[in-house]
């Protein structure tokens, strides 16, 4: 795993489950850690394993998270941050756009960019301005887009049957439903999804971690694609007849990934290790297993699906994100 222990990630995942380890200290002890509090490699991994396996018992440790997840914003090379509000299924409104524009003006945001996941990125925000800009966006009804998270990122969609003459299903609507159900979930690495309304695939669903292609008879759910360091087409998971069935398949797949993958393995890497047949058995064929996975996913969401921006728009956070003291004005001759 790292220099702190001889054990592997897989060993620790097993131990955390079998010995019911519910705290970082218990994990250090069980794994014979040779350091007092781990390192930057093992702590974020253990923090994820503990909260994924014991959502009721374990309390998330912000100090064991990488800066972006601790601050709920993406650090840039000059130490400033980027802010990306969620746009459900890529849909926005004139009011939201006005609020984003107002925030960009108010905080002198140097760069406003449209992202590859159909969101708007405000780049170059100073750390001490984060709570203020979040408060403004929250007041306009927006939540964090988790663009910084090892968790659900975006669900990209095309316009589907609402507008497109080729659309076979309401791909935008399904994308919004998926995002509303799954936002705020932490995963071993980031998870990007897309829903295309027909096999022309305008939402580029077949290179995502989870991709749905709508067809006349329902929804083709495929998983384990990649379009980063590696490029890989998704593999078919199952065909769903209804939106509800598609949603269950996706939640079950993501929960299986959360419970079993090594930290920082994207789904395509994890599936390559365990095999698609192993995944299909638990997510598709065994209906009891699917239902149990969905139930565990929903239970975790009942605890972790909270808006970090809303929670951090208060005065306390404002103070915590600002410098502790300014000695440039003190006489120190």
């Amino acid at each position, binding site marked *: 795993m790292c220099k702190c222990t001889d054990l592997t990630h897989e060993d620790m995942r097993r131990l955390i489950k079998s010995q019911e380890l519910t705290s970082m200290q218990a994990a250090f002890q069980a794994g014979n850690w040779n*350091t*007092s*509090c*781990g*390192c*930057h490699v093992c*702590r*974020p991994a253990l923090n994820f394993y503990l909260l994924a396996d014991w959502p009721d018992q374990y309390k998330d440790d*912000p*100090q*064991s998270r*990488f*800066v972006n997840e*601790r*601050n709920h914003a993406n*650090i840039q*090379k*000059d*130490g400033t941050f980027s802010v990306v509000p969620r746009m459900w299924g890529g849909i926005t409104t004139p009011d939201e756009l006005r609020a984003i524009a107002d925030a960009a003006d108010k905080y002198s945001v140097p760069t406003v960019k449209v992202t590859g996941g159909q969101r708007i990125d405000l780049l170059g925000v100073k750390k001490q301005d984060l709570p203020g800009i979040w408060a403004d966006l929250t007041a306009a009804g927006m939540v964090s887009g988790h663009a910084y998270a090892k968790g659900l990122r975006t669900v990209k969609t095309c316009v589907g049957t609402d507008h497109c003459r080729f659309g076979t299903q309401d791909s935008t609507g399904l994308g919004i439903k998926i995002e509303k159900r799954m936002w705020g979930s932490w995963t071993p690495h980031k998870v990007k999804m897309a829903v295309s309304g027909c096999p022309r695939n305008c939402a580029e669903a077949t290179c995502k971690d989870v991709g749905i292609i709508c067809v006349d008879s329902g929804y083709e759910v495929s998983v384990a694609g990649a379009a980063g360091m590696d490029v890989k087409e998704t593999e078919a998971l199952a065909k769903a007849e209804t939106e509800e069935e598609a949603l269950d398949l996706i939640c079950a797949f993501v929960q299986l990934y959360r419970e079993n993958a090594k930290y920082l393995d994207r789904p395509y890497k994890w599936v390559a290790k365990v095999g698609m047949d192993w995944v299909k058995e638990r997510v598709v064929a065994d209906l009891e297993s699917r239902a149990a996975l969905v139930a565990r996913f929903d239970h975790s969401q009942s605890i972790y699906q909270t808006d970090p921006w809303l929670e951090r728009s208060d005065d306390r956070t404002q103070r*915590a994100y600002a*410098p*502790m*003291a*300014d*000695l*440039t004005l*003190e006489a*120190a*001759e």
Partner: protein
Amino acid sequence: MNVHAKIMPAELWVDIGALEDIPVRGARVIRSKAGCVALFRTGEDSVFAIDDTCPHKKGPLSEGIVHGKSVTCPLHNWVISLETGQVAAPDEGKVRTYPTRVQDGRILVNAAAMTGPA
């Protein structure tokens, strides 16, 4: 900010705030005449002050993960000793450090050491 300054030769101990104002295994920044300085609190409640700038690509060390008496830079994972400012091998470099004290739960730094750029 409460300032209980006690002037001594080459020393100016300034009360920066309470120990609890820094999260355990976390950091806060202070502005000083030497630039931004990161104040770290370790798991054992020791407090260290070092320049908030990684010698590699100027990453803000105050945003790194604190482990033992070291911090890992958030930009490219350089590991820096909070005690000595020394960069861990195989990387090379050194960060300026400043004296600190913890007294009755308050953090004091020697502002006299934080004059002028490094």
